[in-house]
């Protein structure tokens, strides 16, 4: 019988009611008295010098309150990067200035040149069009290889070249050289991890408000982490102390990483509202989002695997070019390095691994974390490569994987991380059970009878989630701690508000987090509410990304709840005239062990706030506790995925027929929500594999600049998914034993799809096709078939 409450129950989401009735409150739904509207004039060229900028006529137009240009931001900080990567020669990465409004140069299509603040949106647009400006166009740096050639045009004049860093990591050169020199077989693959646009359905919005009475600014913004924004914007850009700056992220319509970062528009509306002493609101259009939201992925990689005569993996070497875009977005530098290189071992006990990454500036939108962030890039390379190796060696791709699985834990990889637990054989067994592999040949024959090819692709994945141990990431260059925080405020009547640093923008925290507290206290979830998204209400937490909310913030919440229980037991002990060591809490009752003497939860909470009969000499009144939790290690969700598809050899069109995912997330609090997270991740991974691609032309013009050309996965592109999370090896180092589930689907699914495409093509005799780059569009498949 499935549980109906507490940890492990598939409780229906309480937040759904407001979303289903149109009463959610997203940032654009907030309007304030005296509000003005902001429109950015954005560069329509990829690279150029601003030789003239005259807003005087535009400023005189109807409704215009004020027009801001780069001049207004002289002497004001630029947008900071939160992670300093040190290159292989021990030098810090190059870190060019990232101004709020362009300072003399534009460096990508969409780079903001000026901002109009007006009484209405249309008036702001009219004036933005009327701003007179001249740009001397410079050659655009788009291709990463070309960007690194000597004499290439520089994106930043004050840097030596377009190389942000040249990073090397993992085993030493001698170990790698030895592995490859001993190899009986080496498999090599060159591939591209396609540039994507995160595309949460809610475009970004920022509303800045200034209160002259107390010199306090409020920013309402579509953010996954309001405290991070407060810290970055207050301390590094605008110089506003924390106690004078409030950041509110209300209902947020999806994030997927792209709403982690601190953006120019947030700083602008906050700054401008202080200047004009009126609220300033900016609402992104979708077209604007394509050229101002940080993009994701965009790696070009060569990867090589060395195997011995028994098909054991003995060495792995990768060389990646990673596109940074024109500026360093908040966590951009960490994605191709620490979030990517550390995962190159995958699920395998390869003893020698070396990762090389060159990060490159180009005249494109900044690139940063997108669902999975570095880990999908690692998984894609490795799992495509292992599949290719199996094909070259003529061995079963599952057997080759199984043979090389890491099978004892903890396991320290050659790439710095230590996997605490896992069971890759179990998830692969489960997957094989789910996909009816035995029936595949019959299904293939049926497809062939209809003129179609059928392919089955399989892969494993591992990810590092629950980011992150602060001391470790500090050594690696993080400029912030990555703990999280929770305050459990028990009210006099026993109801509870839990203020959390994590932010929910689809993940269902408002439902799942109370299940944990309810389980611990033995009270009903309806007595517990989660408060999130407002820095004036919540403790300093780092927000939601990297599948960290439950593993890190949830752990803080557990710790705070434990403190509550300890104190409540003292109070109960006093009320029951017993030692607190003898008090047991069960089902909301405090009982003296071995007796029938008990007091209810509500009696204790009331005593805490009405301390008439209370041990005031020993403990303070009230019942409110805060805990900060800094994880001891990352968590390591893992699993095995399978994709079965049909390929139309006449058109090249691929149709997903079945998709199965066997995940190990450790313990699960709300299975319904976990499965939903996997579904969503799978759709984004399948989208990357088959549909989505952010394309620039050689002049740096964005070709896929709307949903007319950027193919978002739709309902008719996707199947029902088969998902399972029953193979659970609980995380060993956090109190809930949870690992995180938000990114798994996006990390694990792209190689399964491409592996299946290759399998289908080979079954049809197209054995010359080693690889097809993503998205595996009909056109690309057809071209590959032509040879």
């Amino acid at each position: 019988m499935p549980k109906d409450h507490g940890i492990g129950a598939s409780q229906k989401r309480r937040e759904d009611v407001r979303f289903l009735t149109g009463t959610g409150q997203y940032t654009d739904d907030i309007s304030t008295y005296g509000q003005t509207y902001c429109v950015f004039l954005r560069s329509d060229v990829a690279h150029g010098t601003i030789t003239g900028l005259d807003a005087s006529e535009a400023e005189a137009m109807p409704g215009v309150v004020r027009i801001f240009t780069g001049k207004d931001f002289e002497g004001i900080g630029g947008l900071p990067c939160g992670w300093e990567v040190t290159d292989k020669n021990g030098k810090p990465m190059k870190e060019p200035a990232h101004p709020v409004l362009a300072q003399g140069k534009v460096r990508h299509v969409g780079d903001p040149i000026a901002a109009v603040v007006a009484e209405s949106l249309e008036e702001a647009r009219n004036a933005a069009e009327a701003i007179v400006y001249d740009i001397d166009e410079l050659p655009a740096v788009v291709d990463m290889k070309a960007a690194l050639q000597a004499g290439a045009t520089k994106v930043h004049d004050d840097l030596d070249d377009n190389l942000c860093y040249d990073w090397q990591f993992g085993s030493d050169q001698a170990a790698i050289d030895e592995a490859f020199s001993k190899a009986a077989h080496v498999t090599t693959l060159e591939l591209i991890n396609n540039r994507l646009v995160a595309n949460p359905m809610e475009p970004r919005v920022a509303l800045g408000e200034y209160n002259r009475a107390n010199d306090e600014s409020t920013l309402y913004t579509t953010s996954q982490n309001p405290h991070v924004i407060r810290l970055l914007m207050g301390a590094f850009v605008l110089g506003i102390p924390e106690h004078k700056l409030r950041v509110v992220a209300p209902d947020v319509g999806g994030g997927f990483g792209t709403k982690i970062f601190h953006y120019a528009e947030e700083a602008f509306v906050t700054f401008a509202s202080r200047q004009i002493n009126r609220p300033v609101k900016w609402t992104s259009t979708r077209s604007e989002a394509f050229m101002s939201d940080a993009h994701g992925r965009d790696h070009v990689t060569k990867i090589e695997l060395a195997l011995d005569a028994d098909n054991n993996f003995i060495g792995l070497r990768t060389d990646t070019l990673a596109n940074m875009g024109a500026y360093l977005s908040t966590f951009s530098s960490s994605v191709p390095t620490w979030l990517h290189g550390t995962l190159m071992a995958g699920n395998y006990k390869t003893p020698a691994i070396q990762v090389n990454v060159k990060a490159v500036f180009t005249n494109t939108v900044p690139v940063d974390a997108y669902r999975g962030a570095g880990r999908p890039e690692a998984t894609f390379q490795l799992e495509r490569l292992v599949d290719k190796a199996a094909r070259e060696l003529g061995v079963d791709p599952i057997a080759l994987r199984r043979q090389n699985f890491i099978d004892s834990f903890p396991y320290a990889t050659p790439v710095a991380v230590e996997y605490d637990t896992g069971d890759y054989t179990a998830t692969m067994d489960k997957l094989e059970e789910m996909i009816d592999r035995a029936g595949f040949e019959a299904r293939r024959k049926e497809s062939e009878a209809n003129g179609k090819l059928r392919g089955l692709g399989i892969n494993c994945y591992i990810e590092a989630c629950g980011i992150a141990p602060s001391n470790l990431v500090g050594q690696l260059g993080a400029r912030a701690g990555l703990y999280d925080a929770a305050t459990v405020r028990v009210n006099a009547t026993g109801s509870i508000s839990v203020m959390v640093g994590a932010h929910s923008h689809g993940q269902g925290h408002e439902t799942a987090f109370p299940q944990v507290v309810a389980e611990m206290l033995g009270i009903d979830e309806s007595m517990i509410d989660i408060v999130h998204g407002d820095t004036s209400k919540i403790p300093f937490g780092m927000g939601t990304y990297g599948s960290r909310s439950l593993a890190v913030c949830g752990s803080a919440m557990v710790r705070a709840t434990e403190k509550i229980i300890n104190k409540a037991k003292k109070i109960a002990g006093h009320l029951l005239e017993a030692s607190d060591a003898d008090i047991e809490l069960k089902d909301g009752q405090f009982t003296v062990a071995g007796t029938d003497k008990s007091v209810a939860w509500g009696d204790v909470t009331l005593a805490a706030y009405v301390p008439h009969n209370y041990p005031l000499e020993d403990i303070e009144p009230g019942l409110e506790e805060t805990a900060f939790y800094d994880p001891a290690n990352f968590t390591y969700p893992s699993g095995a995925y399978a994709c079965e598809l049909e390929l139309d050899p006449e058109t090249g069109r691929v149709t997903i027929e079945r998709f199965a995912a066997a995940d190990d997330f450790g313990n699960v609090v709300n299975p319904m929500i976990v499965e939903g997270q996997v579904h969503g991740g799978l759709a984004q991974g399948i989208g990357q594999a088959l549909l989505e691609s952010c394309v620039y032309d050689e002049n740096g013009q964005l070709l896929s600049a709307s949903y007319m050309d950027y193919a978002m996965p739709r309902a008719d592109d996707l199947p029902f998914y088969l998902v399972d999370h029953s193979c659970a090896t609980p995380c060993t180092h956090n109190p809930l034993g949870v690992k995180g589930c938000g990114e798994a689907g996006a990390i694990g699914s792209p190689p399964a799809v491409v592996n299946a495409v290759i399998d289908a093509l080979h079954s049809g005799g197209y054995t010359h096709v080693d690889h097809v780059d993503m998205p595996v569009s009909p056109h690309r498949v057809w071209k590959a078939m032509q040879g």
Partner: protein
Amino acid sequence: MYSFELEIPTTVADAVAALGKDEAQPLAGGQTLIPSLKARLAAPSVLVSLAQIDEIKGVTIEGGTVTIGGGTTHATVAAEVAEAYPALSYLAINIGDPAVRNRGTIGGSLANNDPSACYPAAALASGATIVTNTREIAADDYFEGMFTTALEEGEIVTAVKFPVPEAAAYIKFEQPASRFALVGVFLAKYADGVRVAVTGASEDGVFRWSEAEDALSNSFGADALEGLSLSGDGMISDLHGSGDYRAHLIAVLTKRAVKAAA
């Protein structure tokens, strides 16, 4: 969006009069025009909505001809020609999505003549007649290239007359993002021959594939198309497919259309 006056006449005569005003532009279903107005790609002073003109709405089926009012939505076409002209109904029900089909109209689509739109293929393959407030134009004379038609300023498509073929099929290969036709082939077989119209592919907009028509008129079957191919020159090449790929698809889809129609 720039500001403009929105006029909503209820007769063709009033619409034509309104369109005589300076910088006036007609608004049909708006599913293409409104997005481009939002992007400030058009700046009419007066926008004349054709949505309330009952006399240009509806479908009549008479003596082997389906006549569709220019203001008829895709949804209505799909429903009302389902029996009389199933291939045309199939085309209509695969345009955009349900909400778009409830607003978008056949007249709007034909007047816009997007090179990837579906209706131009049907009109051209059917040898339809485009009826306007002033004249009747044969489909062969109507389409003049991407986004260009024989329509004069202020001329409104009031109806389209489709001779019902003996057999027909429309095969659309969707561009994955826009869901417009990457290539669409409409094939219609009449007593006096077969017509094959292709949308989505050519830089000159919708066109007839005459070699295929000749071959099929001679012998109606997929075998008749063996060995026939088109050059990728002059075909649209974009991030979704090269000209060569589009040319290849035309041959594949035409064969499929023959099978579907047979």
